[in-house]
């Protein structure tokens, strides 16, 4: 078990390194840097000035070196000009002697956002907490509903209930967030049918969450996931319901309700657990769409605005968080599957 864990962790670190390098490479392509130079130093500067600005700000060194500096395994660049030492790790007005030589992601220095004019780590922190609230409510809605739908559909395969619920699940998986969000806003938050039950934007939810301003975003993300998890639960449930021990229980005279509740349910819920954990990366997707649609300034919204405004440090920070979330959920799902399923032993 320990070796399995270690191997998984090692692969995870390797994957994280590769992914962050790819993101770093793509965000630091010459056209991006040129754009950055022009936004920072004025849009009418010549090509030579762009080059000198880039050199002066440490963007001139080779890609791998810059990646190392950003990661915090290579000492940050320093430059001496007219007796003034500037450097990656030297803040304005700081004595160069006292500055640390390494300052990268590993040291907790995530850089400075050129659009929000703030430390990346603080921005990502506050935005993440907002998204965390959204995610929490999505989970609260999504997990029980989808499990109930899946179990109800799967306990009697081919019944009318199964068919109706399966059609519902197919319909929700066929409706991406930007479609269901638009439809929900039109129906429940606009003058189309005159039902102004909810608000079409969630910008006020950042100050205080109410049912009125938070219901639509939550249900929009949850709907897309519900169909998928419900279908997985249904498949797992139908498989369990045809197992020998269920037949035995039925023949013993156990009532159908008890068979479902006591014998089938626990075994049927192992597979959905993995699926729910693996849904996190998908939720991330949904969060980005829904936060843009409902103007809820959380993590997804930040990612979009960082990418749209060529805010390199912030985009890198967001990417690190996103990649981290995906990898950790993968790890948890693997480990959880092993723990939950007694048939799998890793020696």
């Amino acid at each position, binding site marked *: 078990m320990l070796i399995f864990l270690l191997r998984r962790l090692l692969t995870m670190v390797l994957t994280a390194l590769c992914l962050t390098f790819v993101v770093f490479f793509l965000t630091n392509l010459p056209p991006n840097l040129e754009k950055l130079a022009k936004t920072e130093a004025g849009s009418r500067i010549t090509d030579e000035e762009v080059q000198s600005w880039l050199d002066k700000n440490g963007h001139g060194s080779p890609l791998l070196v810059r990646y190392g500096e950003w990661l915090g395994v290579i000492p940050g660049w320093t430059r001496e000009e007219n007796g003034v030492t500037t450097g990656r790790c030297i803040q304005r007005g700081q004595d160069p002697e006292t500055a640390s030589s390494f300052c990268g992601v590993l040291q907790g220095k995530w850089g400075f956002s050129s659009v929000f004019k703030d430390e990346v780590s603080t921005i990502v922190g506050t935005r993440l907490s907002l998204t965390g609230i959204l995610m929490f409510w999505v989970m609260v809605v999504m997990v029980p509903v989808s499990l109930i739908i899946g179990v109800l559909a799967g306990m009697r395969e081919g019944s*009318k*209930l199964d068919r109706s619920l399966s059609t519902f699940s197919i319909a929700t998986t066929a409706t991406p967030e930007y479609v269901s969000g*638009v439809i929900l806003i039109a129906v429940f938050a606009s003058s189309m049918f005159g039902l102004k039950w909810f608000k079409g934007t969630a910008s006020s939810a950042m100050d205080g969450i109410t049912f009125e301003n938070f219901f639509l975003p939550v249900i929009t993300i949850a709907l897309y996931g519900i169909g998928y998890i419900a279908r997985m639960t249904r498949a797992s449930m139908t498989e369990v319901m045809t197992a020998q021990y269920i037949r035995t229980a039925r023949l013993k005279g156990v009532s159908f309700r008890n068979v479902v509740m006591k014998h089938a349910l626990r075994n049927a819920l192992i597979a959905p657990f993995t699926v729910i954990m693996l849904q996190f990366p998908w939720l991330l997707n949904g969060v980005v769409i829904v936060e843009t649609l409902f103007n809820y300034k959380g993590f997804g919204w930040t990612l979009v605005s960082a990418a749209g405004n060529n805010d390199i440090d912030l985009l890198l920070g967001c990417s690190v968080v996103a990649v981290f979330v995906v990898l950790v959920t993968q790890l948890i799902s693997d480990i959880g599957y092993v723990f939950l399923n007694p048939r799998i032993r890793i020696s």
Partner: protein
Amino acid sequence: MDPLTWTGALSVLNPVTIAIAAAFALAIIAQIALSFVAPEPTIVANPDGTVAARGGAYGTSEKAVRWLFLALVVLAVVYLLAGVVMPYGKVGIIGGLAKRFLPVWLSLIVLYAVSIRYKRRLGLYGKLFDSTIGMIGFAIVMFWVFSAIFATTIATHDVLSQISQMKNKVPGTPTPDDMGWYLLGGDHLGRDVFSRVVLGSRIVVQIAPLATLFAFMVGITLGLPAGYYGGKLDTFLSFLANLILAFPVILLFYLLVTPEIVATGMPQYMAMVLFLFPIVFLLVLVNSRYYVVPALRNKMMTIIAVIGGYLYLSLVGEVGTKVAVLPNMLDLIHVPGNILIVFVSVVFVNSPTVFRIVRGIVLDVKTRDYVSAAQTRGERPWYIMLWEILPNARGPLIVDFCLRIGYTTILLGTLGFFGLGLSPESPDWGSTINAGRKLMTVAQHPAIVPALALMSLVLGLNLLADGLREESLRD
């Protein structure tokens, strides 16, 4: 001219339709509720020698659902037929839509008549017509395919021409020149929503299946050896696939589909790698099969290499960009850089999943006896992979292909929604939703119509996949 109502002359039928629809909904709910308490189906022998299956409340609700559904279908047909037969504009918006879509209805009728007539000779495709779900799904998908084919005939207005008086006008508003109506209203720039949605289907119907096909070529070409050989190759390829899968899709899109990236020539380099796979796949396919008949093989390989190579160079290269191989005269296929990057990134996102599916199936199939038999015969690995394993994996792969086209459609919509790649003027559904959502409080239809179109297409593909799965499992 007067503005159109939804149903025009047939408005007398509306109360009936609403009543039947309400009764239908009630019957379904009743049936579901009753299915919890109803006893298991039993066959009862009647005194007169006949048998009756299931009576009582549940049976009644079942019957009610069936008949009410039939009545609804008949009513829908009446609305559509009236729209087609009566003059344009008499039967309101629905009638007008029915008339505009006339070529689509005719094609669908012909397609279904022919397919059902010869369904026993058409293999898996014919079996699709045994499943109701599959038929419905296929009808929706073909509806949009035919709409894309006949788009220019169906559309009432030009997709880009703007009439300033028609800004955000409700469905059925007549145009100021009294020449017709905006059937589904005008958008924020005064363009016809209906025509834009119809022409937008072209972009989706062109890109989504092709991109999925390319993703499958890449996934199959890499997944087969990974599953068959295993070992280092498998570890390496799986690691790469997991790497791409761990990337949040939107982040990847934001990094890949930007004008800066197009300027670096990166989409073309990626296209160079990804588009190579279909050619390699076909060459290996032919080579492994006709290895023993060198004359035939050489002929076929040359044909594939020449045609495929030409298409490849023409598709990847473009004069005036970083990759320019063919001169402009010979370059027949012109793909704008932003469409190419959309295409490439969709293929790039889809292929690792296909790779994982193929690899999983191969791991399962390679333990079968016929594979061992082929190995004992001394067949070469690629022959076994492509001509023994792959045909036996086709069932799940075809089902996944349908689902994946739907997923690709969603991805294309996502790109449009974030304004990535395609130009904001383009009538594709994602961009239209994006433009319409910003004015949801003023006018809802510019966003709702493309949203419903996208949803119906993806739903159709999902239902089609479901029908195919059912039928292929029955083998």
